[in-house]
């Protein structure tokens, strides 16, 4: 478990004070995959570095598994760090050492017996699928392979927490996806709490359980990934959501609506969770005397639950359409008329 209490970090830079973190309160439960998303400079890097005191907070508390870190001695913090693995954007492997030696490093530092180290390292390399690369050097590996080694290294001491600092930001989309699947597997198999910071909403969508949006050193929105994606409250969160889920009306549709102002009945139906599984449109077409024209749609899956929206045109008498709306509302599905330029 990780908990931040009124966490503040102020940098002095050229006589000016920069407030990187402005009173963060956040709780990350054991076994969760928690994502923190923000633009660069939002403070997410400082936040993750406070979890293992790579950066010391100016004030406030960081509680990791019941220990308040800032009150511990340097030696005690070193011990706690062995329980916190960290994966970096640029991998940060030692180029002068083999893959084996890189993964073994945390165990070497802990002065474990050689035999034990060897066994553990081979086990880890197999887990990340690179057992054949033990004697290679990092510069002989691809980005994705390097990150797998970085992950194996972070897991060497069997930590209960894994910190991912933009772990996929330097990778292409396909590699990103495979690394994310690996993180998910780690979370499932070892019940490790994973804290991810990223600026990519797709990362959050793909593996996180919960998400917090950070801006100006503050958490401006927080909740389950499903809630934040289906109903983002702040503009920043909305912007992030729209980077992966296009719910803006395409220009062509907007034009169409403008041209036929008032003549057409165009609606946006939001599908959330169970409602997405219902054959709503065909039901409407059968039950009522209307024709349905699907103009635009976007359905995706979040945390195993379908989610999305459809833009449809109903062709029929006003009366019939009113009945349709009443029927849809009864089913607790959100439906709204679309006006030109509205989105």
């Amino acid at each position, binding site marked *: 478990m990780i908990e931040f209490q009124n966490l503040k970090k102020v940098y002095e830079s050229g006589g000016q004070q920069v407030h990187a973190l402005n009173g963060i309160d956040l709780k990350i439960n054991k076994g969760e995959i928690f994502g923190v998303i923000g633009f660069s400079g939002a403070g997410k890097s400082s936040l993750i570095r406070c979890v293992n005191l*790579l950066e010391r907070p100016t004030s406030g508390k960081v509680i990791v598994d019941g220990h308040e870190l800032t009150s511990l001695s340097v030696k005690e*913090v*070193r011990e706690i760090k*062995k329980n916190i693995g*960290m994966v*970096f954007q640029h991998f*940060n492997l030692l180029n002068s*050492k083999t893959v084996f030696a890189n993964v073994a490093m945390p165990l070497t*530092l802990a002065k474990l017996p050689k035999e034990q180290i060897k066994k553990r390292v081979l086990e880890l390399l197999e887990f990340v699928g690179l057992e054949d690369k033990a004697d290679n050097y990092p510069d002989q590996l691809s980005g994705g392979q390097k990150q797998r080694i970085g992950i194996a290294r972070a897991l060497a001491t069997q930590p209960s927490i894994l910190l991912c600092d933009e772990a996929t930001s330097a990778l292409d989309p396909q590699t990103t996806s495979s690394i994310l699947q690996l993180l998910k597997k780690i979370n499932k198999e070892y019940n490790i709490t994973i804290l991810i910071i990223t600026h990519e909403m797709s990362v959050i969508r793909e593996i996180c359980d919960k998400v917090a949006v950070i801006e100006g050193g503050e958490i401006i929105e927080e909740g389950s990934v499903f809630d934040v994606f289906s109903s983002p409250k702040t503009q920043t969160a909305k912007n992030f959501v729209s980077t992966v889920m296009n719910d803006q009306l395409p220009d062509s549709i907007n034009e169409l609506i403008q041209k036929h102002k008032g003549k057409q009945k165009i609606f946006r139906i939001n599908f959330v969770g169970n409602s997405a599984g219902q054959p709503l449109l065909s039901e409407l077409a059968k039950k009522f005397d209307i024709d349905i024209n699907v103009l635009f749609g976007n359905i995706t899956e979040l945390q195993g639950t379908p989610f999305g929206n459809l833009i449809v045109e109903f062709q029929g008498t006003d009366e019939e359409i009113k009945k349709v709306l009443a029927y849809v509302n009864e089913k607790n599905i959100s439906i709204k008329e679309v006006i030109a330029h509205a989105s």
Partner: protein
Amino acid sequence: MLVNSEQIIEAIIETIQMVSFSLLFSAILGIPLGILLVVTRKGHLLENVVIFNVLNGIINIFRSVPFIILLVAMIPVTRFIVGSSIGTAAAVVPLVFYAGPYIARLVENSLLEVDPGVLEAAEAMGATPWQVISKFLLPEALSSLVLALTIATIGLVGASAMAGAVGGGGIGDLAITYGYQRFDTITMFITVAILIVIVQGLQSLGNILAKKIRRR
């Protein structure tokens, strides 16, 4: 030609002695100083403004004195340490005061080139400062350190020629006493040629070694 081959061989041996001993002692002095210069600077492992500024100042002072002046100014110190100010052993003392601070700067440069991300990873693993230096900083910089020491060694070969002029012996001594003061052009050419061969050899050796460490 006023010198015979025995004299030349003896001079080469003297030069090798001067360079290797002064390299040994100046490395013993310069490498830890270089490490300290890196780890005590602001935002680094063992940040300590006082140690950094004092070291930085002292090294700059030694680095700004021309070697020929250092050579003479060091005579009392040399007498104190070696018991004499003449001879190959005596030449080592000013050479160490010349090359030690130089190596400190070169080591500092090499270590600063190490990716800060690697050191951050070390800290995230809970490495002690000594472990960060010995298991991360030095191994990552090793190839570049070898090149730095090569530069220092070549600098020492040059400086040892000057040291020779004040009674240290060696190839430089030969060149000045015979080649310059007695207008023996052939000796001058031979000694310069020998110096060129030595420098070329050292640089190639350093390059090969650094390449081997980097394995590419």
